[in-house]
């Protein structure tokens, strides 16, 4: 199989195995995907309950297993992941990696299915679990404000759907949909397998994975362009939209949604530097002005979404300070546009981004993530190359991308409790 990638570093003691299904999704199918993969993770023919799964994993020296869902721009990825200890570090050099790989096979390819139907009790439970997840995202205000901004900004795009889908679609998922979804998942999505960590003593692990999974290989290859931001899915708003939402809370949250126009692949580095200068670090414009100078907030940050070409700015404020906070934030964006940026701001931002990249080397999971991103986007870029490219960014590069950043949304999550 060609879709297996290895990262080996002997400073680690454990091994991370990541089995990914990546596919294009429609907004109304997100919940169906999630419920299907959750059902898989809760039991299979061989280990038929969560409890049986966890007991078995305990016997493999606490091998961790779970699933993780992620939006890669408008693509959707479901990751089955395992973390276990290299045999060298275990009593009697007991091997748990191969049993863990066999276990993964059972979970994904040998589910509890009867006459093309999954278990109805498990289905109902996981469905209500997902409905709860969707409903309770309002319980954490700052996070909710950021999610809501993503949704409002990308209303018509798959990315604009919450990772677990929306209530209406989740409620409409039927047991009969699940088997079809499952078949789609294993037959029609691109499979990428990453093994990362200390692989000493496992020279033939590639062959072993091949042997276990080969007959299930589906030969689906992603359109490499689909991971990079595709203009077809992008809707631009003409005017700045201002949205206010009431909620029971003490603190209000102000957010701004921004989109990059005419996004090109090589804008990636300059946009990251842009984000870092605007709101990525404690020396950023937002932190220094909204928090330190004006004393308006404790949290004031910006975030760049690489695979979507959008920014979200967020700050927790007192509601009466909304207009003032808005003015101060807009001034910072204007400053970026006018390239009112010092050499020191540029350099410290680059430094901080480079440190973050170097730190990936300390985490087998970050290294696996890089291998995955490379695989799905058809690249093979190294951390060193990322750093070299980051180092090359100059003020004029930041100025060039700053002119392409367009404000589309200003959102206020209001504090009912603060109205006196």
């Amino acid at each position, binding site marked *: 199989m060609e879709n297996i990638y290895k990262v080996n570093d002997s400073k680690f003691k454990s091994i991370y195995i990541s089995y990914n299904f990546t596919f294009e999704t429609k907004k109304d199918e997100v919940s169906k995907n999630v419920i299907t993969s959750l059902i898989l993770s809760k039991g299979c023919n061989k280990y038929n309950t969560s409890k049986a799964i*966890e007991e078995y994993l305990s016997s493999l020296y606490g091998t961790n297993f779970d699933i993780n869902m992620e939006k890669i721009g408008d693509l959707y990825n479901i990751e089955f992941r395992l973390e*276990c200890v290299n045999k060298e570090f275990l009593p009697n050099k007991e091997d748990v990696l191969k049993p863990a790989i066999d276990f993964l096979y059972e979970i994904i390819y040998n589910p509890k299915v009867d006459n093309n139907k999954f278990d109805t009790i498990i289905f109902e*439970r996981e469905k209500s679990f997902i409905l709860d997840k969707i409903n309770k995202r309002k319980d954490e205000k700052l996070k909710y404000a950021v999610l809501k901004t993503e949704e409002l900004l990308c209303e018509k795009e798959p990315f604009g759907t919450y990772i677990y889908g929306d209530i209406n679609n989740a409620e409409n998922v039927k047991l009969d949909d699940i088997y079809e979804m499952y078949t789609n998942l294993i037959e029609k999505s691109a499979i990428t397998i990453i093994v990362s960590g200390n692989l000493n003593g496992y020279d033939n692990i590639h062959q072993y994975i091949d042997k276990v999974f080969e007959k299930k290989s589906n030969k689906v290859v992603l359109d490499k362009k689909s991971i990079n931001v595709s203009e077809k899915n992008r809707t631009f708003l003409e005017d700045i939209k201002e949205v206010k939402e009431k909620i029971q809370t003490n603190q209000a949250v102000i957010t701004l949604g921004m989109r990059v126009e005419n996004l090109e692949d090589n804008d990636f580095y300059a946009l990251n530097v842009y984000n870092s200068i605007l709101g990525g670090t404690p020396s950023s414009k937002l932190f220094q002005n909204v928090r330190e100078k004006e004393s308006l907030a404790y949290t004031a940050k910006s975030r760049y979404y690489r695979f979507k070409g959008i920014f979200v700015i967020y700050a927790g404020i007192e509601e009466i300070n909304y207009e003032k906070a808005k003015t101060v934030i807009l001034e910072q964006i204007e400053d970026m546009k006018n390239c009112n940026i010092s050499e020191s701001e540029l350099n410290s931002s680059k430094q901080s981004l480079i440190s973050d990249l170097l730190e990936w080397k300390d985490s087998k999971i970050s290294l696996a993530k890089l291998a995955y991103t490379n695989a799905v986007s058809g690249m093979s870029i190294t951390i060193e190359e990322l750093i070299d490219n980051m180092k090359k960014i100059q003020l004029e590069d930041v100025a060039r991308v700053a002119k392409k950043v367009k404000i589309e949304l200003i959102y206020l999550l209001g504090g009912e409790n603060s109205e006196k």
Partner: protein
Amino acid sequence: MKNNIEITTNETLGETIHKKVLSNGLEVYICVRPGFTKKIGMFGTKYGSINNDFIDISNGKRVTMPDGIAHFLEHKLFEKEGENSLDLFSKEGISSNAYTSFDHTVYFFETIDKFKKGLEMLIELVKTPYFTVENVKKEQGIIGQEISMYEDDPNFNVYFNALRAMYINHPIRIDIAGTIESISKIDKDILYTCYNTFYNSNNMFIVIVGDVDVSDTISIIEDKLKLYEQNIKSEKVMKFGVVEPTNILQKKIEKDMGLFMPQLSIGYKLLPTKKNEIIKREVISDLISEMYFSKSSKFYETEYNKGAVSDDIDFVYEGTTDFSHIIISTMSSKLDIIQADIFKFIEELKSNEIDIKLFENTKRRKIGENIVESENSNNSYRRIIDSILNESKLYYDLEILSNITVEDIKDFLNTLEYSKAVISIVK
């Protein structure tokens, strides 16, 4: 011992910790992790939100401080004349931050390639307070927003309300950040009183984690500290505790936050224990959590099938020598059911025999987890700080884990009494 450096190596985790007590009383720990790129430096004081009543080191008089002052001081120490240390670190591409807990405060930085610079800046940060009338006022606005943020956080509310229900006098019932009202009483003079009393070398520690040279690191620390030694008296701190009754304040506390998913914390108030028993209680509780409340437990499966839990159930021990409790927390749309079942289940556990196979399997899981977690540098410093605060030997937790018996688990479970339990609900 070489140059008064005490060396502890842990073969399983592949780590070595070097400890040296400097002539001024400051404890320095260096955990060497070969091959890792990130280096962390931490400078801490055994002073946190519960230390509001103490002897002012400058005049020997007993003083009481407004709630939240340790945390306020943590924020303010970053402020320097005309500049902010957070910004200075950031300009060097070094990330830095700090946190305040019940019983300690730590300032730290993380770097890949500017370790010497970062360490010198960290020492300067902690050793050069600069408090003014204006900068104290400015911070009241920022911390006010931090307090509001916590007030909106359901996890924080359900947890603190459990503490408030359990404790009658102990300052653990007070928010670490204080209240908007209490921090309005803070001024620069009392900040200096707290600083001078608690930020002296006898009460402090430095922890370094990463692939660094031990003797170079000690030289950097000693050279930099020399510049500031004359500033402060280095004496043993006198703190006063309170007399805390063994009973609870109230059985139940409820708060309405308009949540979709209600949250529950059950607290069991326990008798405080000796320093070396604290880590043992932590290890035991961790095993209990895994054996009886995790997703692999029979209890979780039963509750899950009833639809009474949708997320994890955690069973966590917290304690120092003057407070001690268990908090069991979860979220559920059927709080009445899960709450009653937890109390019933704890009583069952106390009277039933412990399943040896389950116990051994869980120990096995913990051994593997400790190895995986040791890849994370944060885990190394957490273990060191835990050992500093509890005055226990390094890696004591691993030693306890390998020697623990079912009787230890049973004995501990028997200290949980329903009459000392409280219920905190946020919905």
